[in-house]
């Protein structure tokens, strides 16, 4: 905390450098905004958190560690121009599949859950990677992007904590149904 304050003070005292942050702040905002601007992304991210909470101990730890990495890998592919067929369909299907898992309260082995989530994460990351703005600051955009994704994830897990109460379980499953329905809508839009 001390150092934070110290740094804040120093930053505050040096307006000479202030011009640096102009477009950088823009990059951060853009990065933060991008993952939450599409409802399809948001639903899937939250669903991952919900499912993790349902799956319990090892999964609720493993998924948040693995997910950002896999997603970044997808974005990396997008940035490098490596094509991925049917991204929009993949994203919509991810909503359906994850929603269905939450709805069914499915408890597959950990490796299966991780592989499923990882596969969808690549689709989501790829979509983000190809939609990146050209002129933003790379570092801040990336920070914002990963932070926003992680927070969506955290929201899902936090909501998923209601899992310990019987009523909460029903609520969670209902939420899964909502996500799956949303996924169906997006699939319809992607295909039609």
């Amino acid at each position, binding site marked *: 905390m001390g150092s934070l304050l110290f740094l804040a*003070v120093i930053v505050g005292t040096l307006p000479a450098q202030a011009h640096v942050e102009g477009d950088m702040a823009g990059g951060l905002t853009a990065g933060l905004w991008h993952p939450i601007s599409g409802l399809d992304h948001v639903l899937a991210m939250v669903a991952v958190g919900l499912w993790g909470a349902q799956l319990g101990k090892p999964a609720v730890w493993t998924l948040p560690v693995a997910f950002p990495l896999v997603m970044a890998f997808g974005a990396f592919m997008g940035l490098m121009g490596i094509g991925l067929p049917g991204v929009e369909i993949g994203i919509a299907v991810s909503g359906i599949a994850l929603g269905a898992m939450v709805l069914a309260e499915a408890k597959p082995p950990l490796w299966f859950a991780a592989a499923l989530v990882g596969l969808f994460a690549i689709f989501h990351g790829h979509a983000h990677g190809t939609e990146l703005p050209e002129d933003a600051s790379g570092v801040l955009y990336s920070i914002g992007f990963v932070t926003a994704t992680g927070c969506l994830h955290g929201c899902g897990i936090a909501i998923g904590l209601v899992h310990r109460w019987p009523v909460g379980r029903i609520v969670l499953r209902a939420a899964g149904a909502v996500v799956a329905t949303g996924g169906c809508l997006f699939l319809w839009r992607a295909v039609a």
Partner: protein
Amino acid sequence: MPGGTRDPRALCRSRAGFRLAGLLGCLFPLTGFAHEIRPAYLDVREQADGRLEVSWKVPTLAAAFGEQLPSLPAAAGQQYPVARSGEHEACGCPSLWARPRSSLAMPIHPVFPEHFKVLSPPRVEALEDSELWTWSFEPPVGGLDGAEFGAHGLDVATMDVLVHVVTADGRVVTRLLTPAVSSLTLTADQRVQLGGYLRLGIAHILLGVDHLLFVLGLLLIVPDRWMLLKTVTAFTVAHSLTLAVATLGYAEAPLEPLNVTIALSILFLGPEIVRFRRGETSLTIRHPWVVAFAFGLLHGFGFASGLRTLGLPAGEIPLALLLFNVGVEIGQVGFVLLVLGLVTSFRVLEVRWSRPARALPGFAVGSLGAFWFVQRLVIMASGWR
């Protein structure tokens, strides 16, 4: 190390305190011994007949590097002639005057409204570490309201300019121009920009290595958190008191003897730290807050001199004073928290320092205090000569 630690929870008796301070002690000299903040200075005074008397005091490169440059432009006090010309400044602006070839002034220049007409060519005087240019403008058409004063080249030279304008009707406008905000427009109802005072307060304490070293010395002899709080509060109250008293003009301390006594206060803490480490006791170690209060009174006068370099806006002295003081406290609290954070970190990381490293902070405080004491004594003595 048997002597130094009596109570394991004690803050600065924990070896980490010394370790950390060792490093800080090493780093302090890096910030240089410069304590005063020296912006360039632009003074514009409107005379009764509308003429503008202008002085422009700009530090020379010699001042910036603090070294004796091979050839100073002129001996102190000597004047050299300046001719009018169509030359350009380093930044490409048309130059008001040809800069004397030997001039080593920082590459910045003031900017005036274009309709200002020069009445008399400038006199240039080479001072110890700066050049003083003085000239006058004809009474400007339309008076001073709406006139824009600025300075160019601040971003390159990373320096500030203090602008001080006195109008014929007695209004005083003081503003610190920075690389970010490098011009000032006079308006009929001049709103004094006060944010600069907060910034100045923070800068003053962050660059005031002697003040920080004194605080560090205090941190090294307080036994626990409660005493730490008492001591820091006592120091804060004391220096705020004298800062206010001095700024409001009720009391005054001559600068040079003041600097000597401030150095003495740091020197004083050195032996106390050593004594504290040995497990001995003294009045200072039993009641550090008393010492903090007493010397805090001195340091407050020092802060006041820092505030005076900026000048004070007419009619808003209390607010400027408050902001400056708050700035100083922000810097000081930040420093204390940083030190505490590092001490805690070293304890968690179980860093063990060797004996000399642990002894270093006490010696650093003591010897730097001694160095400054002698140095400032010499400066004071040479002033009398």
